[in-house]
């Protein structure tokens, strides 16, 4: 990280000078607050347990009925080896999860969001100020998420199974047996490509129907770009859905039907989770 200039003045390319109030001194060591989630202020702090690296947790509550789950954070943001980051993320997730289970609703923050002191206010004052100003939007979102869960669904096709009935693939397989090893390797590649194309076409045909069936049981649904798809499979759809807790069973039944109808289908079904993918409050976004 670049050292701050000695005189504390912004450099030519830094923040415009007029924004900087004279005498203002932002030290990196001023206490900050690491934020886990926004919850209704009725949540009892006793259920929270401890945070990342066993940090003691507290609630910053405002009169509008909202609170933020935080720990005091004086150091720089968490930064370390992947294994540590993974553990911290799980600990962050644990706090969100416990808040969610106790309050029935939660707006999770992503990992490593830290509120700093500044403009003559403490971090606590600034966070409380933000909660107060945004109370209407945050409360509405918390209400909308009450009793809702996030589920993750990945449906993919095993490409061998998908191409089982294809004449083209069958011909290639048959031809391979009678050929010398070098040619076999080439044919294997062609077979692989053919199977994948067949599976892709099948997936294109299945996607609209699967999406429609799952959307009809969900209040919201968002596509995940990163699929954890094993080799030899083609992804049909990878979504996070927001559903009422009572509808989890119906979605499970729909997935059972899909599995029974389509022998090449492989289904991953995760959850129920706090509504991580549906916590964003677009009304609060910068213009």
């Amino acid at each position: 990280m670049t050292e701050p200039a000695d005189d504390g003045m912004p450099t030519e390319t830094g923040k415009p000078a007029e924004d900087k109030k004279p005498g203002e001194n932002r030290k990196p060591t001023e206490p900050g607050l690491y934020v886990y989630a926004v919850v209704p202020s009725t949540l009892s702090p006793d259920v929270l347990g401890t945070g990342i690296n066993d940090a003691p947790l507290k609630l910053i509550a405002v009169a509008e009925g909202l609170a933020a789950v935080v720990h005091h954070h004086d150091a720089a943001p968490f930064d370390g080896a992947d294994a540590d980051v993974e553990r911290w993320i799980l600990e962050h997730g644990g706090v969100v999860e416990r808040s969610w289970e106790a309050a029935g609703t939660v707006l999770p923050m992503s990992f490593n969001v830290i509120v700093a002191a500044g403009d003559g206010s403490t971090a606590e004052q600034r966070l409380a100020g933000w909660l107060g100003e945004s109370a209407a939007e945050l409360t509405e979102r918390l209400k909308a998420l009450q009793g809702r869960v996030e589920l993750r669904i990945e449906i993919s096709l095993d490409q061998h199974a998908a191409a089982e009935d294809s004449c083209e693939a069958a011909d290639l397989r048959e031809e391979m047996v009678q050929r010398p090893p070098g040619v076999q390797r080439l044919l294997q590649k062609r077979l692989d490509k053919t199977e994948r194309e067949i599976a892709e076409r099948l997936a294109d045909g299945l996607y609209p129907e699967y999406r429609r069936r799952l959307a009809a049981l969900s209040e919201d649904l968002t596509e995940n770009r990163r699929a954890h798809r094993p080799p030899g499979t083609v992804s049909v759809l990878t979504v996070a859905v927001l559903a009422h807790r009572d509808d989890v069973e119906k979605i499970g039944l729909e997935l059972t039907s899909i599995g029974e109808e389509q022998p090449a289908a492989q289904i991953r079904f995760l959850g129920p989770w706090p509504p991580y993918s549906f916590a964003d409050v677009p009304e609060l976004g910068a213009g």
Partner: protein
Amino acid sequence: MGEAMQPTRDVRATLPDLVDVLLNKGVYLDLDLIITVADIPLIGVNLKATIAGMETMLEYGMMKNWDERTRAWLRDSVSRQVPLRGGEEVIAKMAGGHYWQDPDGSFETWRPGSIYLTTHRIIAFRRDPEEILWQANLYDIAQVVLQTESSIGGEKRSRLLVEKHDGGTALLSAAQPNRLRDLVLKAQSGTVEIEASAGGPSTRGQAERGGKGDDPDTLLFEGDVWYQEQRSGSPIWRGGTAKYDSDEGFSWKAALDRRPAIRLKATEMTAVRAENGHTPVGNSSILILESETGTYRLASDRVEQWAQLLHGVSQQKREDDDDAESQ
């Protein structure tokens, strides 16, 4: 039917997904509150970005004094949204839009999105549905002129008129038009110094998005179309792109979806009509497509054209099929 499938919460099975979601999702926190050291926001360095983190950094504009790790992180975050070229870095980003005119002058509109100024280009980019609305290389730009115009409410607004060496022009809106113009000048004159860095940014985006690619010979009609998706609560309108291809038929896809959510061959459309109703485009016409798999409700500022085209092709196909059968 068998037992309902049960979702799993087993950490061994869900860890990658959980890490992914906690690094990328969550409620948006006011940018000004986030911790900074010497005006450099200190969030998520070496970690995958939250959108909030990225925008904080961009809001501060210049990256001259940022260290390589911070810039690499920023590049990575930006290139998840906007496809950057090798060695290209973002200088600033702000809300804005591009004034779009139909080539024949029959239709014009402001298309909102974000304006990115990079070391190479100005880009007007819309996130959802994902599209580069307009872009120009900095070296193609002759000048950027501030124009003041009155908005409907009578309030004065500055717009940026971009004039290119080839005579082409574009009109942009931006949250801070003066600042953007100054930054363009600086970027063009090379006052923005960003050291060359090892390893270009990842440029996922266009190649991945394009998929199979459209065949210009068979793609007959294409445009921004909203599709009303049925949910367990109330239905929602989703933005996306509709296409009619003479071989593939009609399809509709949202930018971030993996595959088209509607695919209908001309012969599968049993009815095509327009109906009155409320739509996100504000006009009152909804395009209804019926098939054996369901009824689809679509909105666009060109419902009439879509209805005529689809009605025509579905009729034609059926007549052709009838002829074929009777022979």
